[in-house]
């Protein structure tokens, strides 16, 4: 009838292009990426200085402090997840694109994790050394932090999407996300403590992995719905 053909590229293509765009943006603004990482490193290196040099005390408090710092660092970076897209009008274009919105929301969360979660996981062994945590628990620390930060990036995107149109949404975002983040914090910190004590850790890791899968399957859908509401 006419020359108009709605040629929509495949889902994988759409997912790749939004991840690539956000990574490119992060690359051009390294300050935004480094902020949460600095926060994480600072909180967790100042703590041993304040508590004192007792190795036993540090080893006991280490997992908890590291996990709280990681949680707060992730929350800090979540606020800006959809904010710039909302302000410059790209969110309209993303919502109106023929690619499914949950897919694009997933892509945003993936790139958010790559620039904010993954660096935390990578530097965590260094921080663990300042708490004189046993070498055996470092692997568990990295694994739990990886699973935990993925969950937080995904769950946090729901909060970021809900608060994107609001002034001072940051406090509200934390309130919305913290209840969902509690299980991650509890199981993450406890599993690392158990590993340090030489106990079995499989149960905690299984729980974190299951929670991560749950977030992976539901958070993009919830984020997409929240974005449509916030963008009205």
């Amino acid at each position, binding site marked *: 009838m006419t020359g108009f053909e709605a040629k929509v590229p495949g889902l994988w293509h759409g997912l790749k292009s939004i991840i690539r765009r956000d990574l490119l*943006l992060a690359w051009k603004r390294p300050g935004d990426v480094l902020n949460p990482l600095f926060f994480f490193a600072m909180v967790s290196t100042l703590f041993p200085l304040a508590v004192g040099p007792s190795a036993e005390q540090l080893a006991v408090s280490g997992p908890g402090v590291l996990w709280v710092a990681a949680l707060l660092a992730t929350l800090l970076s979540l606020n800006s997840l959809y904010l710039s897209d909302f302000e410059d009008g790209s969110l309209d274009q993303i919502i109106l694109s023929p690619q499914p919105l949950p897919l694009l929301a997933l892509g945003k969360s993936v790139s958010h994790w790559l620039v904010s979660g993954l660096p935390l996981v990578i530097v965590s062994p260094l921080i663990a050394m300042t708490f004189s945590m046993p070498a055996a628990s470092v692997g568990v620390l990295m694994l739990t932090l990886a699973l935990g930060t993925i969950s937080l990036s995904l769950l946090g995107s729901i909060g970021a999407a809900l608060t994107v149109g609001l002034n001072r949404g940051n406090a509200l975002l934390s309130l919305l996300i913290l209840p969902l983040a509690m299980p991650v914090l509890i199981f993450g910190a406890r599993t690392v403590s158990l590993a340090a004590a030489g106990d079995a850790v499989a149960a905690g890791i299984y729980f974190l992995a299951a929670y991560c899968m749950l977030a992976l399957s539901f958070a993009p859908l919830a984020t997409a719905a929240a974005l449509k509401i916030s963008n009205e």
Partner: protein
Amino acid sequence: MHLSLYTDADAKTLTELLSGTNLCVLRGERCLFKGLNFALSSGELLLVQGPNGSGKTSLLRSIAGLFGLETGYISWRGVPTKNDRQSFSADVVWMAHHVGFKADLTLLENLRFETGLRSATLEEIESILERLSLSQLVELPMRSLSAGQQKRGALARMLISDARLWLMDEPFANLDVGGHDLVIELIAEHLAENGICVMAAHQDLELEVPMHSIQLQ
């Protein structure tokens, strides 16, 4: 230009591509418009006019599905758009007042992102950029382009998308005389190819095309 504001919602024919039935939009407590109907066939343009704050942008956003309607519905190819968002999205492109490009990325990087969402080849992009006299600017970050040049970038996105329905909010804002004529020319071509266009604008259009218009109060 002839003025036709359909009031009879039943007067639909199969040739109608885009129609709105009994539309009402609230902005906070205020009713911007209600009982609004329109119907467009292929090759037609709908011009939405009215003073600032009269709801031109809200009407366009609700046609796109970005803004919730209080009553009524929009149909595309005879199917209410809320029933089939995905295929409607493939047919529509939205040119808003905010151009929707990332200021830190170059025009080419921005357009490359678009091609991940809507297919287009790089050769297509090159010829489109040539036509919009943007070829020299593709390697510059968007923030260093002028408002008019960014607007031309938004036109490039419309052309790349190959969508049948163009929704344009104040397409002439920030454009120079050449840009103004270019937009007119692009719209005329688009309509000649059986495209369809809904535009919000302040001024009248010097355009010889089948046109409907809506005057919002």
